[in-house]
Structure formats: structure tokens, C-alpha cells
């Protein structure tokens, strides 16, 4: 089986090359954030870590209110995630396990809303937020998205098979109402589906840029992505500082992803391949 060995080697070579391409920008980011800006302008480029990380981070803290932006982002992402999990699982459970008049048309409407392009309503949405007095407020980032069609659909698919009817009817005999059946019987079973939806929502909220850029007008309310873009725009020449800021903003999410990655990737793939 010598030819198989060669084949396997070649195969891994190509795959490892792909991995290098996909991971290299992170490495490059980490290296640059430990260098001085003048180092970055030297040829050949420095490919190994320097000693200026603390300096660079210090300048980040001087230029933008990094901790504020960090906690703003964390707050928005956590609150969004909790609300999405609650409202989506409630509705998903209802669609999965209850028969009620107009269920079918309501569900079709739900699916149809996924086709509505968000950018079309960018301007009027902003006008509505201004009317509500929500411009500059986290409410504008959190409330419109706190129940979404994708999540409801996702939970419904999972709950249909995972929540046993026998358990629900047993609960009913014990006098449980809809909410008790949801909270006490269904929610514990839905945990794997909730974990994926939670990670997905959190990552998206953390990375959101266009809407916060429009809504947040006060630097003390900036989320990380908006603060980073300001850092990049204003201090164009101090690249090592910009890189240190970017590194700090990216790191927490990568750590989170590495924790949930296996299941997360499996769920993404399953969601796309199932019809």
C-alpha cells in the first residue's frame, strides 16, 4: 500500500496548507500587536512576536474607552442572547407541540419573513428608532431582534422530536398549564438546541457592525466593532496599536468558539443539509 501512503501524505499537505492560510491572519494579528509600528514598516516583515504588547494595549486604552466598549458589547450580546433564547424557545415549543386555529398560515408567515431583506428597511428603521427616542440606546440594538424566525424554526424542528408527548400529557393531568409545561418539562430537554442558538446569537451580536454604527452616536455607548472602526479610521498610522485593539476584541470570541466548536459546527452543517 505504498501508493496509499503517498496519497495520504499529499492529501494532508494540501489540507495543512489550507489550515495555514485560514489561521495565518490570526497569527499575523497577534505578532503585529506585539511589535512597534516602525517594526511593521521594516523589510523583511517581522514574523515573530515582539515585546511591545503592553505598550500597544496601553495606547489602546488611551485612545478609546476599551473597557467601556467591551462591557457594552458584552451587555448587548448577553441580554440579546437571553431574550432570544426565551422568546424563540417559547414560540418554537408552541409550534412544535400544540394544535391551534390558524397555526399553518401563522407558521408560513413566520417562514416568509426570513426572506425580507434587512437593508431595505435601514432608513425607516432608523426613523422609527428616532421617533421612539431609542437612537443612541441599547434598546435599539436589543429589542427588534429579541424574537427571530430562524431561532423559532430551529427550536421547533428540535422540539418536535425531542419533547415526548407522554410527558406533556402526564404534566397536563397534574394540572400544569402551558407555561409550566414549557418551563419545567420542555426547556430541560431543549438544552442542546438552546446551546447552539445561544452561541449563534451571541457571536452575531458580538460582531454586529452596521446597525450599531448607525444607532450609537455617543462614544461612551460604542460597542467593540464600532470603537475598532473608529480606532482604525483616526489613528491610521499607529498600526501596532490598532492591531492590539483588534486582537483584544477578537480573542474572547475565539476562546468561546473553541469551547463550543465541535457541536456548533455539527449543528451548522445539519441545519444546512437537512431540507
Amino acid at each position: 500500500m505504498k501508493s496509499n501512503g503517498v496519497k495520504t501524505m499529499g492529501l494532508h499537505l494540501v489540507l495543512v496548507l489550507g489550515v495555514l492560510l485560514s489561521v495565518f491572519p490570526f497569527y499575523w494579528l497577534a505578532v503585529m500587536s506585539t511589535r512597534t509600528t516602525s517594526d511593521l514598516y521594516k523589510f523583511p516583515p517581522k514574523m515573530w512576536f515582539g515585546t511591545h504588547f503592553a505598550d500597544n494595549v496601553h495606547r489602546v486604552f488611551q485612545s478609546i474607552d476599551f473597557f467601556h466598549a467591551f462591557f457594552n458589547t458584552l451587555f448587548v450580546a448577553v441580554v440579546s442572547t437571553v431574550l432570544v433564547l426565551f422568546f424563540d424557545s417559547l414560540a418554537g415549543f408552541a409550534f412544535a407541540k400544540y394544535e391551534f386555529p390558524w397555526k399553518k398560515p401563522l407558521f408560513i408567515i413566520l417562514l416568509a419573513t426570513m426572506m425580507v431583506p434587512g437593508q431595505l428597511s435601514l432608513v425607516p428603521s432608523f426613523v422609527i428608532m428616532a421617533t421612539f427616542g431609542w437612537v443612541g440606546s441599547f434598546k435599539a440594538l436589543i429589542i427588534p431582534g429579541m424574537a427571530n424566525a430562524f431561532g423559532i424554526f430551529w427550536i421547533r424542528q428540535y422540539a418536535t422530536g425531542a419533547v415526548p408527548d407522554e410527558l406533556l400529557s402526564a404534566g397536563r393531568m397534574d394540572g400544569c398549564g402551558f407555561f409550566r409545561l414549557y418551563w419545567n418539562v420542555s426547556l430541560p430537554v431543549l438544552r442542546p438546541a438552546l446551546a447552539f442558538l445561544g452561541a449563534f446569537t451571541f457571536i452575531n451580536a458580538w460582531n454586529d457592525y452596521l446597525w450599531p454604527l448607525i444607532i450609537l452616536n455617543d462614544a461612551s455607548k460604542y460597542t467593540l466593532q464600532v470603537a475598532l472602526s473608529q480606532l482604525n479610521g483616526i489613528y491610521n498610522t499607529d498600526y501596532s496599536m490598532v492591531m492590539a485593539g483588534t486582537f483584544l476584541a477578537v480573542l474572547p470570541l475565539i476562546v468561546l468558539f473553541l469551547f463550543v466548536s465541535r457541536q456548533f459546527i455539527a449543528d451548522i452543517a445539519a441545519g444546512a443539509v437537512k431540507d
Partner: protein
Amino acid sequence: MQQTPIVSNPSNRAALRPEHSRWREAWKNRAVYAAISPFYILFAVFGLFPILFSLYLSLQKWDGIGTMSYNGLNNFQYMVTDPLFWQSVGNTFVIWIYSTIPMLFLALVIAFLLNSAFVRFRSAYRIAYFLPNVTSIVAVAIIFSTVFANKYGLLNYMLTAVGLNSVQWLNFPFGIQTAIASMVVWRWTGYNAIIYLAGLQSIPSQLYEAAKIDGASTAQSFFRITIPLLRPVILFTVITSTIGGMQLFTEPQVLVGNDGGVGNNGMTIVLYLYREAFVNNYFGYASAVGWGMFVIIVLFSALNWTITKERA
């Protein structure tokens, strides 16, 4: 168990007055309606209403603060003769082509290799390939701006290192659009590869074995078995890439700014919409651009759908 078919009260009533019983049934389920209602309320207020409102706004002249004045179809008339609008449409399509074709091709190759029987550490590979997808686009754009920088860029260093001339990437159309497309490729190739891999793994291996017995080559079984059976998955990735590609905003905005860089070559449709609304304060015109974009996306997606369905 029960033997009282005639006077069974609820069913009898239902037979007599179906409408009435429907409302009764609905009332009994009021908790269920309460559970699903947040979504519909939010959608009505923040989804449906803005869309109708944007139709109204597109017929107005408005700077967002002062008074609105009715403008008829002037915004739309201006749009179809606005060279910058058409340039942004053209740029969006070019960037979409530059990114989607290499991205889906590479993704298919990676998935095919990962699916091979010899591969170990499959899940480690999957995580490494997926990693770019969870990074924020702002961060990606900042990193790539140092790769494609005109002076001292990493790419230019590599070019000069192998004896080629350095390229002013951000000074001409092809350069800017390649830089933007490469961010999309970097961020989404792994994602699409994972989707393809899942599709490949759902193809029963007996099909390949049968083909092998019948003397089919690897290429034959790839084109006769893999591609046809992967068709729905390929369709999915083409559709999602189209939607994503038409909505490109952050990559060009962070890389080259609100004007799309030198010669507006990085100006995409959404970036143009954003600039007209929130930089220039042409709220009415920006709403018209939104509708123009919507029509283009619908037409393009429909075209895309038919072509992919036939070819794949």
C-alpha cells in the same frame, strides 16, 4: 370507552357551528398565542412597517430633520441616471464573482479531501477551517488592510521577495475589488466546506462501491454521483453566497471608507445606501436606492436559481 355519540356536547356543537367553535378553540389556546405573539408584534413594528414606510419615504425629499416634501418619482428617476448608483451595482457584482467562484470551488475541494477515507483529525481540521467565520468583519478588514497596503503591505513584500513588482492594491479597480473579495473568500470558504462535507457524508458509500465495480474512474464517480447528489447543497451555498454578496458593506467600509476608496471602486450597493442616508442625509433618495437594490437582488436571485438548478 364512552358510548354517547349523539349528545357528546363539544363535537356536536362543532358540527353545527364550526366558526363559533374555532374561536372557542382559539380562546382555549390563548396562552399559546401569547407565546408566539412577540415575534409577530416585533415583525410588524420593526420589519413590515419599515418596509411600507420606506416606500413612502422613497417618494419624499427629506434630510431626516427638516420637513418632508412630496417628490413623486424623482428619486427613482434620479437613481436610474445616477452613474454612482450603477457603479455600485457593477462593483457589487464584480466582487461577488471574484469571491463566490473561488470560494465555492475551494470549499468543494477541501470538503472532498476531508471526506476521503484516509483523513484523520477530521474534526480538528473542521475547527481550523471554520475559525475565520466567527471573526468580526471589522477585525478581518483591519487585518487585510495591512496585507493589501500599498506601501509595506505583507502581500507586496511577498511579491518583491520573489522578484515581482509591488502592486498599488488600493489604487485601481481590480486591486480594491480583489482585496475585498479575498476577505469574503477567507471568511466563508471554511463555512461552505463544512456544509459540503456534511452533504458528502450523507451520500451512501454503496453508490461509490457499485460505481467502482462497474469500472468507473474517480472523475466519473465525482461528476456522475457526487455532483448530482450534492445539488441541493450546492444550491443552498449559491443562494446564501448571493444574498451575502449583494449585501456587502463592512469589508469595503472599513477597508477604503465611506466613498469606496480611489475612484469609488469599492463602493457597493449597501455602502452607497448607507452613505446617501447617514453621511449625506438624503433619506428619501436612500430609500429609493433601497428599493432599487431590492429589485436587483430579486431579479438576480431568480436568475441564479434557474441557472444553478439546471446546471447542478
